[in-house]
């Protein structure tokens, strides 16, 4: 009996000891939980990377950049033959960033009172990025996204349905922003919390001690502006009455849109201490040392935009392109005899890409002004006339590129009556000026605008994004693709969910060219 007792004791001691012996699996390398503010700063930086360094083929299609004659051709871009790797990295980066906002929203909903600001930001930024994805691809995973355990193969939601939900999410975001404002104003939040939220809000706060009321109003304006962009984009699908109904809700919050002087841009403190800390757009063209990189050697000025600037005597050309030998010459992207870098201008200019530490533009004031101008031109009430708003848009674009407001006014006066410049002439001028203003700022939006409005019109002289030598013909026409192909990573991991039969010429739901 005694022997058995000893044996049992030994076994018990051994297994207890074993448990302790092997209980050492606590990760000393990375945290397993973090506070929402560090998620916010990381998410906003992800947004900045998306705007500054994703979809880098599009600027070539939009007549902004062109391949250098020093490099061999890149057929998928120049012959308009997309393959499934064409936008794979961009797709993955966008979902990665969206997942960060989704995590913020989940964390926020754990304590909605103290974290309603975070929920508002998450909803606003999700609307911004999901709409970009829809504009680029059409149907995308949305309702089942970001839930690996439940939906390992998230379904692709109808693009139009996604848009409708994003619009309502933006209304909801405003509600959360208002709740946050109340929370800060009531003094419910400690001043430390207010400061922290301000510091990690690297869009409208940046640790500059911005008063919560101002900061949050800026967020509301931003949310309103994003909503306006979505509504105008989907106007062909929801009709003018649908747009008006939604704009009425925006009017009700009374904060208006991003106006001259207030752009949505991000800066976590970009600096040249390492490649990963450079402004993302700057990093496409420059190295840590300040020397130009391969991206600078490869992407040169595009002759289409150069022609436009020259034809309208637009001084903004120097803000975007760097002269070589005192001249600004470009290539036509896809030109078999593209000139070498010894004679073609670089992309960067004096302002657009000038510093490792510059802000990364997310949504510019001039884009907001052009949007409002377009809305006004279409007869929607946005609180201003189309001409005034578009003029302000041109002025802010000039200022952004280092010119004076007066230069803009001179420019408009010089081109008075020009359908490419003069806002008074109507929609073409508004959209064409928006296109040239978005040069090297937001090419993906320019691509969307081109597909939905047809502007800038390829007139054979100034524009004509049909330069490929052996292009893919669509319906007998030379035209740039209507959308991006679903990427290889999705085909291999979520292939069964991908809608069938979509080609690069399947229009996105708001694109009416085929109807």
């Amino acid at each position, binding site marked *: 009996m005694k022997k058995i007792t000893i044996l049992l004791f030994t076994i018990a001691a051994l297994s207890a000891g074993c448990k302790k012996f092997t209980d050492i699996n*606590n*990760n000393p*390398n990375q945290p*397993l939980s*973090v506070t929402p503010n560090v998620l916010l700063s*990381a998410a906003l930086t992800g947004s900045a990377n998306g705007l500054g360094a994703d979809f880098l083929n599009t600027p070539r299609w939009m007549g902004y950049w062109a391949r250098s004659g020093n490099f061999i051709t890149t057929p998928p871009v120049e012959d308009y033959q997309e393959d499934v790797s064409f936008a794979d990295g961009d797709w993955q980066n966008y979902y990665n960033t969206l997942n960060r906002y989704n995590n913020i929203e989940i964390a926020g909903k754990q304590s909605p009172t103290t974290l309603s600001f975070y929920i508002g930001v998450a909803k606003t930024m999700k609307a911004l990025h999901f709409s970009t994805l829809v504009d680029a691809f059409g149907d995308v995973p949305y309702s089942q996204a970001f839930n690996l355990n439940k939906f390992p193969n998230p379904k692709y939601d109808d693009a139009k349905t996604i848009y409708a939900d994003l619009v309502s999410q933006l209304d909801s975001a405003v509600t959360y922003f208002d709740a946050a404002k109340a929370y800060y104003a009531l003094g419910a939040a400690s001043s430390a919390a207010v400061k922290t939220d301000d510091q990690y809000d690297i869009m409208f706060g940046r640790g500059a001690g911005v008063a919560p009321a101002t900061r949050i109003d800026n967020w509301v304006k931003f949310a309103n502006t994003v909503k306006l962009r979505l509504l105008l984009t989907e106007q062909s699908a929801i009709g003018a009455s649908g747009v008006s109904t939604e704009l009425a809700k925006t009017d009700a919050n009374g904060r208006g849109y991003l106006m001259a002087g207030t752009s949505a841009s991000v800066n976590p403190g970009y600096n040249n*201490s390492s490649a990963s800390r450079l402004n993302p757009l700057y990093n496409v063209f420059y190295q840590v040392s300040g020397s130009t990189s391969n991206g600078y050697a490869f992407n040169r000025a595009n002759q289409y935009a150069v022609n436009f600037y020259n034809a309208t005597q637009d001084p903004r050309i120097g803000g975007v392109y760097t002269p070589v030998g005192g001249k600004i010459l470009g290539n036509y992207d896809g030109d078999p005899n593209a000139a070498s870098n010894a004679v073609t201008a670089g992309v960067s200019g004096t302002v657009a890409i000038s510093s490792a530490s510059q802000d990364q533009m997310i949504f510019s004031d001039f884009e907001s002004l052009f949007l409002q101008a377009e809305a006004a031109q279409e007869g929607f009430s946005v609180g201003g006339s189309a001409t005034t708003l578009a003029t302000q848009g041109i002025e802010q674009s000039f200022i952004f590129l280092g010119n004076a407001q007066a230069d803009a006014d001179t420019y408009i006066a010089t081109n008075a009556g020009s359908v490419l410049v003069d806002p008074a002439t109507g929609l073409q001028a508004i959209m064409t000026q928006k296109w040239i203003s978005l040069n090297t700022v937001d090419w993906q939006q320019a691509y969307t605008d081109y597909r939905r409005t047809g502007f800038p019109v390829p007139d054979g002289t100034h524009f004509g994004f049909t330069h490929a030598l*052996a292009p893919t013909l669509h319906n007998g026409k030379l035209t740039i693709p209507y959308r991006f192909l679903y990427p290889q990573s*999705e085909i*291999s991991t979520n292939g069964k969910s991908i809608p069938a039969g979509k080609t690069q010429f399947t229009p996105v739901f708001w694109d009416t060219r085929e109807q």
Partner: protein
Amino acid sequence: MLCVTQVFAQNRTVTGTVTAKEDGLPIPGVTVKIKGGTGGTQTNSAGKFSLSVPANATLEFSGVGYTKVSAPVKGDVLNVSLATASNQLGEVVITGALGIKSQARQLGYATAQIDNKALTQAKVTDVSTGLQGKVSGLQVNLTNNGVNPTTRIVLRGNRSITGNNQALIVVDGVPNDNPNYITTINPEDIASVTVLKGAVAAAIYGSKASNGVLIITTKKGSKGKPSITIQNTTEIQSVSYLPALQTKFGGYGGEGGAFVNPDGTVNPVPYENESYGPAFDGRKLGIALSPKFASDGVTVIGYDTLFSAYSNKPNNRRDFFNNGISNLFNVSYDIGSDNSTMHVGFQDNDIKGITPNDTRRQDNIRIGGTQTYGKFSVEYNASYNQNAVSQAGPSYNQTSGGLTGDLLYFEVLNTPANIPLQDFKNINSQYGNVNSYYNAYATNPYWTVANSRNNSTSYIFSGNVNLSYKATNWLTFSDRLAITSNTQQILQTRQGVQFAPWAIADPQSAGNVPSSLGSVFPATLDQTFFEQLLNNDFIANFNKKFGKFNLSGVVGVNTQQSYQRELSLEGDQLQFPGDFNITSTLGIPTYNEFYYKQRSGGIYEEATLGYNNYLFLHVTNRDEWNSVLSQAHNHYEYPGADGSFVFTDGIKSLKDNNVLSYGKIHAGVAQVANINIGGLNTNPYGAYSLVNPFVPATGFPFGSLGGYSQSALSLNPNIKPEQTLEYEGGVELGFLKDRIKFETTISHSESKNQSLTSSVSSATGFTQEIANAGLVTNDVQEFDLSLIPVQSRNFTWTVGINFTHYANKVVSLSGGQHQLQIGNNAANTVGAVAGIYAVVGKPFPIIETNDWIRDPASGKVIVDAGTGQPTPNPNLTEYGTTNPTYQWGFNSTLTYKSLSFSFVIDYRGGNEIFNSTASVEAFTGISAQSAQNGRQRFIFPNSVVASPGGGFVNNTSVAVNNGNGGQPSSFWANIYGQPVGSLFVEDAAFIKLREANLTFQLPASIVKSIGFIKKASIGLIGRNLLMIRPKSNDSIDPEFADTTGNGIGTTSVSQLPPTRFYGANLSVSF
């Protein structure tokens, strides 16, 4: 009556010495018995014996590893020499799992044992290389061939899709699952290597055993007079061949302007890295500029030009590589008395590689020995290995900062055929300096070897001590404690460059990429890695006879801990040339720290029940607890059972048959588990892989601003180990007193619950997840045949042939997925891309890459009726498996008197490889293939065009519209070399003459006359002397791989060209 006879018989004392026939050295421990009598003794450490024997007695001499000899007693002295017996099937003692020695007849599974002689016959410096081609079921891939080559050792093929498939290395009973440590053992210190091919043999080792085991037993010295052996081997390594390159066309890449003549023909472009220029015509061509300055030393007033004939410069790339030279020096000292033995080995290996400035110096010292005192005994072993490697790093070219840049081999290969590369050898010369180097898009490779270095030194200590206490004659307790400690220091440095203003001004308007950078900061990566492995086994070992039954076995407890820590700092903006201290960097260095610890505990039991020495049943079981899994899943069991039946002893009618002298059948089954959640970051143990961590987002922290995001890999707290169930069965036969030996084993394994790290839709918020899923089956057939066709007094000829057939299949993957990517050729920055995949229903891994669009009816390539060009298919096409499915090994030794010649040939085939080097060559127009049509328009072979009436018809008239390169839509640069990888999927079969050696052993008579030496030999050795490949592979060694992981099947310019070794060896023993 017998007793009476003995009493009255006239006894006398006989003395004598037992020596080995082979070398005349005394053999200790030989049993000397009186035939038909009862008396006996053993030879002492000097091989001497003394025994009182009756008159006319006959003595029998038997020693392990020697043929039994009977000799009648004539006189007082009886000297006997014994011949080595490699052919005593069934009696061969195999050092198996846990270091337990057992006779081959007892084993219910397949093993192979390689002795020191076979292992080191070609004077290899790495154990794994010495095993190549010698054993069925064992595959060693030399994945890379620089001065510090890497190998991949796989037994019975791949079982785990994303986990480890490499064999477990056990040195003197101590397991180490990091196969890299095998390179730290001096092959000359190894007594034998036992290969436990499958799970059945290895199950007792637990979680690391599912891939088979290499049991390495080191020398411990031997009883007898002290002996010293000194060996020196000098070897030359030379490039066997470079890819087939075109010799007719020089540089041009689509430049316009002055390079295009009015008639549309083009002129050669001296600064190009693409070779799409006009045919060589011998014209005098200026290829590089050097400025002439005004008196101010700054203003450029003109240029000197380096001229070179526009013609092929044979060997301009090959001559970049040197003949490598290595010197291998070995000393060993062996000593032993009746109670103790000791072996000391020292090795110094000094290598200069084929790449200029690449060096390696490895020094290794090992002490091993035994000591017995009554019931106590100790076995010990300690070694120290220091390995300093210096290899060329990446160039500065086209960097986005830091230590990135094109690889050296890429830059050497892509030198146009007309460029006299050696003219740029002096990097401080007028034209060799960075400003004047001819190529506008690449770095002078001579600059790279001088200024970009990857230096690494590892300091590895390992030791173990095994204390035993023999409690009774059937029970022994022992404890084996082992430690391995590895400190590795890595310092990568790349010098900075400051381009001259005249070079930055780009006088040739070349769009010079390097000089456009203006300046490049020096950069450094400083990394320290420390690993410590601890292992302890407490074992009770019993062996008892009950009548005709024999029961032996082991009960043991194992505890093990692995610990690893790494710190690294990278600075990309060093301020001063030549000063690579991290404190000299501007900005914030990139820093990294990892810390991993893992522990496991195990209890194991093993028992063998033998009946009459011909029927054996063997069972094993192990319980294990491992720290890296959750409490709910961290305990698992490894049961196994096997049996063997020596039917030539067990069946009376087969006994003592001279034709079939030995026969055994065996069968076994075992289940093993394998924890394969490691491989994250640098974590090989799988620690901390249960809960998703947050990681700093790219760029963070920005000053005092932190930012975190979820890791991209979704971890799984409920992960379980992979499970492999393996069955095996086999036959061993010996004919004609074992002059013919034949062995065959078939095995089948099923590996389920794989810990698959598979890609998931990024819309889930992750890019990868770990899940238990998937099933892989693996069927392997092994055959080994050894023959002694001739065995006479002066001449012996032995032959060994082995054959293995591997067939694995992916039965299922995670969540019904069809395929899983496990690798690709990521090393290249240009050219086509291929992925390595596991695909349901296929063997794995297989290649997938893009093909042309083909006519489904005929399978022919569709070309455009206007341009004559084919179109790449955007979707991937599946190709063959990358793992050999057939493997032959052939080795033979011919000995005539003192001369012996041996060689090893092996064949592998049935697999394919993606040769991305060829793709790079096509892209730049240097491959022989790209010039096959003289750069003229041609009709794409075997193509079809759309027929106006629908369908496709054979293309007999539409030629490709541009048969050159350098312009958009030109065939070679843009269509052929770029997106379509199917062109570079090649048959990976090869036959290699792995080893050959001719040795002259100084005859015993001469040795005797010299007196102070015991043995001496001189030999010529060669390795990888010959390789035969299919015609389609004209550029690479298909054994190479971009990885030592499972995603083998792609090769690239990150490997050097294949090489051969030849040298001479001198060995003297005192």
